[in-house]
């Protein structure tokens, strides 16, 4: 690619950066945010056609710092700020993807993505179909989403159902540091458009992950694919908690507490809402005979509703109890002081576990 402004050679600095990172970080816990940031940097190195843009993603490095240092390292042709207009950001990304680029764009917050909804629903989702497969749109729309961070109105929506309901969009949401890296790399390399939901409350969560080793594994195509592949986050035998994104950690906490009471809960992190992994989910429910879907979004006409329906259709004869849901209430996302009452908690999940007709 011919640059119109000067920039550093990412390949040279990358080798050095990666070696340094490896030496320093082999045994250091990394944050979810750093994993995303590293995935973006590695994708910029791996493919000249990757470009990153959005509001405040350049000099500032994003309001959550997920694009921190990318403009400095790769130049303003590869990572840049746009005017403040979400439809414009998505619409321009569509054109760039038509013209052989791989845009990775940031919607600053969940609810601020709504102005772009027409572009996403009418064009991002349909261009490949409308052109009979002639035009692929390999683009990623990153959306920081959900609550648990004391955010004010318009900053905490769980809007995944709108996108999952739209044919033509893939919908990813990682729940671990390792998945944050792998799933973002996969999303960027996907020939299909991906709406990539990042649980805000996980940005600062840490895990012991060797990102350089993970990168090498991914690039050598040795990493297991996450797309359409749910993850058994915790094995168990009495009931299955099916969940994703920000609710995975809550479900894990509930499973730990249940274990103390002698109840063995399996936790499934579905990872990609679209495409959905019926196989892993149903295998678990057929084994345990009981299931609860846990999600932070309001429950009415939600991804959780869809999962309940699918499990019921496919596993009816294995079920010992109705499939339950623990979700946010059907109310606008509440103020920071009250959000704890709305969010699914380990206690609320355990109450639901108690209702799974154990006496029968």
């Amino acid at each position, binding site marked *: *690619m*011919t*640059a*119109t402004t000067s920039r550093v050679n990412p390949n040279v600095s990358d080798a050095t950066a990666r070696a340094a990172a490896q030496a320093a970080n082999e045994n250091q816990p990394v944050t979810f945010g750093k994993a995303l940031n590293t995935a973006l940097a590695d994708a910029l190195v791996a493919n000249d056609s990757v*470009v990153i843009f959005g509001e405040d993603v350049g000099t500032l490095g994003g309001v959550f710092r997920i694009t921190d240092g990318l403009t400095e390292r790769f130049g303003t*042709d590869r990572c840049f700020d*746009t*005017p403040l*207009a979400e*439809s*414009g950001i*998505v*619409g*321009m*990304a*569509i*054109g*760039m*993807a*038509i*013209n*052989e*680029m791989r*845009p990775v764009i940031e919607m600053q917050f969940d609810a601020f993505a709504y*102005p772009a909804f*027409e*572009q996403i629903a*009418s*064009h991002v989702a349909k*261009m*490949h*179909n*409308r*052109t*009979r*497969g*002639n*035009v*692929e749109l390999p683009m990623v729309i990153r959306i920081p989403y959900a609550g648990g961070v004391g955010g004010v109105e318009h900053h905490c929506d769980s809007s995944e159902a709108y996108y999952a309901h739209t*044919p*033509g969009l*893939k919908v990813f949401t990682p729940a671990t540091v390792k998945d944050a890296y792998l799933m973002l790399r996969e999303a960027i390399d*996907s*020939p*299909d458009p991906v709406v990539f939901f990042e649980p805000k409350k996980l940005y600062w969560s840490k895990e012991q992950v060797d990102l350089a080793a993970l990168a090498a594994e991914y690039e050598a195509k040795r990493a297991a694919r996450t797309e*359409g592949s749910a993850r058994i986050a915790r094995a168990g035998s009495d009931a299955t908690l099916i969940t994703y994104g920000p609710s995975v950690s809550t479900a894990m906490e509930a499973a730990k507490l249940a274990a103390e009471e002698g109840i063995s809960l399996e936790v499934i992190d579905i990872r990609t809402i*679209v*495409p*959905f992994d*019926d*196989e892993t989910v149903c295998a678990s429910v057929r084994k345990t005979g009981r299931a609860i879907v846990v999600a932070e979004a309001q429950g009415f006409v939600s991804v959780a509703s869809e999962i309940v329906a699918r499990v019921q259709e496919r596993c009816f004869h294995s079920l010992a109890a109705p499939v339950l849901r623990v979700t946010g209430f059907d109310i606008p996302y509440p103020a920071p002081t009250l959000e704890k009452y709305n969010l699914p908690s380990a206690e609320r999940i355990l109450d639901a576990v108690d209702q799974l007709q154990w006496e029968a």
Partner: protein
Amino acid sequence: MSTEAHEDRISEVSKKFGITPEDYMLPARHMINLLDPDGTLREQSDQGTEPGHEYPLPSPAELMDAYSALAVGRRVNDQNSALVRQGRMAVYPSSHGQEACQVAASLCLEAGDWLFPTYRDTVAVLTKGVAPMEVMTSFRGEWHCGYDPKAYNCAPMSTPLTTQLLHAVGVAHAAKLRGENTVVVAMCGDGATSEGDFHEALNFAAVFKLPVIFFVQNNKYAISVPLAQQSAAPSLAHKAVGYGMAGERVDGNDLMALMAVMGRAVRLAREGNGPLLIEAHTYRMQAHTNADDDKRYREDAEVKGWIAKDPVTRMQAYLDDAGLLTEAAQAKITERAESVAKKLRDGMNQDADTPPSELFEHVFASKTTQLAEQQALLADELAREEA
């Protein structure tokens, strides 16, 4: 990119024309009009040009090519309207009366340049080189756009208003990042200028200094709503100055003026002077589509008044007088128009052959498990129907 750099660019190009940046961005006081409705070349003093807004005439060869495309466009519009009446096409938004705009939008471009049309821009798409039946595919009720956009550098005709302008901006941006010299023409109508994406597209194009020509066909109506209820701006071209780009008004039924104005806009854009906004004054001679009844919102007399300004007869009269349009040349053009019309009649008279199973094939690059299941379900239903 700093504000200073932006102002420098505008002042640099305005200096080339010997005018102030404001005079460069503002449209000339009168719309550019080279040919009178009767085909007479206007005196230079009456062409609407002024210092910095001057337009050299296109060459006779360019005019003859353009007239040929114009005549084909008119024939195609009328053929399609007939096919709709005969029930061979589902719907057709005719550009009858706007063919000069259609032809100019495509002819100003080079092969590697991109066109972003709307649903009424079939003649522009045809002029870009897309095969006649491919252009009209979606209007016979098919589920896809009918042509490979990348094979023709022509986007699918957009049904939602002005969303495609942002895609045009993206195509231009990608090309600029790769150091390519691509120019993009993005089309919309007067009503569409009220949409939010019109604003976002013009703003993005100007901020990133992209080679995009925003070409507004002001045909006076958005279905039934007249321009006065869309905008209180002095003209649609005046909107350009708010974005820091040049605007111009041109007689949209004067093919010679359109070619001159669009030609200069493309040159300026290709030289790196950023986007331009061109407003072409024209008139939609027929209803919005065959499903619309235009008698509910406009007077017959108004429509009839525009017959005298017709773009086809105007150009024909000029070329006749100039001795360029010989009988043989006219016969050849008529033959070409008839051959395209025949292709459309023959094509539309054959039933479309679209296997329903294909509905599942292109939702994603490769089918999900769930789509494969649904495809199998439909296949099973169809098999039982046949049995």
